[in-house]
């Protein structure tokens, strides 16, 4: 059987980094091919080249034996390549049908298109109404828009970039069924992920990238997750160790919390209640966009809530802003590193000042103590192994993992009474993720109440004492993590009842 797509010696360099170095691989029709690697391994650059968003510096691509060099995504789509992005390329204010029309070369009239959307969505078990505004859809539904957009063009190759990171277990199951059906019909799938069990469950072959190079090929079904992980990471990883959690008094409690979202397509929080004890890690799972950002904003003090809804050590936090909360010991780290947790163009020293002023005594009566701030930044850098030439470097010059270590380190070193973090390891390499989780566990061991909001269920199972699910702005009752299995979690996350959950 001839290859559908063959890549030979693709190389792409950016200033200071070789994103892809002599990468070769081939995909046969109907094959589900995994592209496995850590963040920064070069997966995204590789698929951007296939999709015509980036031009390779060297190397060749062949499609069905003929030369293939798409100059832009349209050319790639015309050649039968479809792509579902990790961060969806959707337009919130437009309807599903309009979004899909934008991804097609010659879309039919809207009415015909709507009918075809209904048809495809039924064929592949992806229910979706063409008239709805995309901004109102859940993450899973939004992904369906992208998939249907690709399917309407009868792609020969479908590229999926980290598709399950935003899905509930039930939604993952539906997705895999769709992908298997497509594969059976002869569509090749290039499946990008760093989740090993998923790849073992779904993919026929796998190519593993590390540092921009191909470091191995394997048949996932015949290879253990451990072997793949070692290929991917290049070394064995220490799993975080949790000391026995002696939990104490309730420190932070949230009672019947309801607030509207400040953004147009955000999620309102509805009647949320929970309590966190000293020394405890509470994990809040759920797909991003279900109120995670809003919950963090309420706890950090950015989003005001009514009196009595949030209390810290029995003290009502209503009307107390972020800076005053830090003074009390309630700290937080939001999801978005660049622009929210840190100011991209400002130095690490200045970013240390951003949240450290009150607790670290970096300012006195409004006057700023820069030498002391620099020392604080240097301490974060050394204690959290942040790779940077020094505290005068801009936040945006750091890699995702390093900046995240800085952001988490900045809060952890202030010895908070309560620490709330949102997606602490999102888009972070495995080594940094492990370090961050360990830091959170150590913090809890020291008596801090830690709330971890994350969509990475494995992470939550690993570090939290109790688990609750945030879905559609509502929070389930927290339950002890021990003894919880994937089915139960899936149901807590609001998955459809009665559906068999794929154990992935």
């Amino acid at each position, binding site marked *: 059987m001839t290859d559908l797509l063959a890549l030979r010696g693709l190389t792409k360099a950016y200033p200071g980094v070789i994103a892809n170095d002599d990468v070769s691989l081939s995909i046969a029709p109907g094959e589900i091919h995994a592209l496995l690697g850590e963040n920064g391994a070069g997966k995204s650059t590789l698929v951007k080249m296939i999709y015509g968003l980036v031009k390779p510096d060297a190397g060749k691509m062949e499609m069905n034996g003929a030369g293939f060099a798409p100059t832009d995504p349209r050319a790639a789509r015309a050649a039968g390549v479809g792509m579902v992005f990790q961060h969806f390329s959707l337009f919130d204010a437009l309807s599903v049908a309009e979004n899909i029309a934008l991804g097609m070369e010659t879309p039919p009239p809207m009415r015909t298109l709507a009918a075809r959307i209904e048809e495809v969505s039924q064929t592949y078990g992806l229910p979706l109404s063409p008239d709805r505004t995309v901004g109102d859809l859940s993450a899973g539904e939004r992904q369906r828009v992208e998939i249907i957009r690709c399917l309407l063009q009868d792609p020969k190759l479908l590229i999926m970039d980290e598709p399950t990171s935003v899905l509930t277990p039930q939604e993952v199951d539906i997705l895999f069924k769709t992908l298997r059906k497509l594969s059976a019909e002869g569509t090749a799938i290039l499946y990008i992920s760093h989740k090993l069990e998923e790849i073992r469950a779904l993919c026929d072959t796998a190519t593993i990238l590390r540092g921009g190079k191909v470091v191995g090929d394997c048949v996932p079904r015949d290879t253990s997750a451990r072997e793949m992980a070692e290929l991917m990471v290049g070394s064995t990883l220490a799993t975080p160790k949790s000391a026995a959690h002696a939990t104490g008094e309730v420190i932070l409690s949230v009672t019947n919390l309801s607030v509207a979202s400040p953004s147009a397509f955000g999620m309102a929080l509805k009647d949320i209640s929970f309590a966190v004890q000293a020394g405890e890690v509470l994990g809040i799972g759920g797909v991003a966009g279900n109120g995670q950002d809003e919950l963090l904003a309420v706890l950090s003090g950015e989003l005001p809530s009514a009196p009595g809804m949030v209390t810290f050590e029995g003290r009502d936090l209503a009307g107390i802003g972020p800076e005053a909360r830090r003074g009390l010991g309630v700290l937080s780290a939001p999801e978005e590193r660049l*622009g929210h947790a840190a100011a991209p*163009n400002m130095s690490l020293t200045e970013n240390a000042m951003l949240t450290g002023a009150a607790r670290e005594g970096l300012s006195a009566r409004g006057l700023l103590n820069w030498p002391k701030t620099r020392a604080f930044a240097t301490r974060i850098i050394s204690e959290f192994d942040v790779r940077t030439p020094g505290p005068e470097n801009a936040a945006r010059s750091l890699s995702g993992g390093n900046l995240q270590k800085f952001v988490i380190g900045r809060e952890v070193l202030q010895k908070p009474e309560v620490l709330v973090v949102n997606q602490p390891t999102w888009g972070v390499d495995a080594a940094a993720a492990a370090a961050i989780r360990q830091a959170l566990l150590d913090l809890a061991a020291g008596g801090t109440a830690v709330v971890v909001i994350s969509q990475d269920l494995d992470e939550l199972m690993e570090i939290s004492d109790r688990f609750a699910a945030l879905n559609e702005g509502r929070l389930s009752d927290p339950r002890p993590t021990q003894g919880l299995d994937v089915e139960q979690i899936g149901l807590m996350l609001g998955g459809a009842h009665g559906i068999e959950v794929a154990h992935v």
Partner: protein
Amino acid sequence: MSRNLFDKQSGAGANPLGMAVLSPALWLALLFVQLEKRPQPSKAMAYATPVLAVVLTMIFGGVLFAVLGKDPLQAITTIFWEPIFGEFAFFYRPQLLIKGAPLVLIAIGLALGFKAGIWNIGAEGQYIVGAICGAGAGLAFYPAESVLIFPLMVLAGALGGWAWAMIPGLLKVKFGTNEILVSLMLVYVAEQLLASMSLGLLKNPEGFGFPGSRNLQQYPSAHNAEIITGTGMHWGVVAALIAVIFAYVLLTRHSLGFAIRVTGEAPRAAKFGGVNPGRLVLFCLGISGLLAGLAGMFEVSGPSGQISIDFNVGYGFTAIIVAFLGRLNPLGIVAAGLLMALTYIGGDIAQSQLGLPAAAIQVFQGMLLFFLLALDVLTNYRVRFGKGETA
């Protein structure tokens, strides 16, 4: 008067010249250039770009003057050399301070707001209202003499400018109204108010029916006279210096200045850090209005002398250029303010000696802002030559 390109008989009047020369060249350059984001802003470029912008403006300004039928070299030396080192420099040098002070005073306030992404572009209006209030406070006591009158006028001018700027400020905080549009609309309102004042309430009763107030230069208690004769050093210059020092300390050493900078760089991060955006809006608009009001008050009580229909000459708008040219940095603004004052004075000389139209100087100033904004890209991006990448 010599004929220029736009003279209607020449037939070439349709040429929107500035752009006709610039645009195609700029666009052509694109075919060979691509931008690469720097890992962090280049400090060297941050200092180099204003200088480069001035040089480019001189070159293209020279082209402009040549097109207008003037000797470009002579025009440029007349504008930049004559006022400081020419025969009559003793007369022009003090002017540098007189024209520079209001520009610096206003630009300092604007820069604080611009840094935080708060766009007060109605300084011209606040300048006018400051002048009206300051002059009004002084004239209310006419002809009584007291040392308290002038301080009172300073206070009134500052308050007037502050209050005028609080209108867009409060509307933005309470209703989310766009401060750019409101502050700008208020310039037109202030201009009408100025006309109404010079024709009505503040009109000189002994002015033989001419519009305009009494001349404050002839009212000792209200006169903002030179502190050292012949230097151009009046109280407005002192106020500008204080404002520069105040802004410098605020931005580098104080938490409020830090809040301003973070808000401009990353508003969400600022909010996360504990900045109250509403309060910051009120502070920035208030302080810039206050300084613009002061500038208007010092102008009306000193160099200009009276409230009249054409009292305002556009300092409030030119100060926007000054703020950007000074890279929103207090010390840079001093240099930029003096440079811009120089173009005003030199422009006047060029107008009388060479017949260079006044509007040419305005174009010249506009050009400077353009080059500055265009070159700014070099601070954050590296330019690579070669055909651009896909998409």
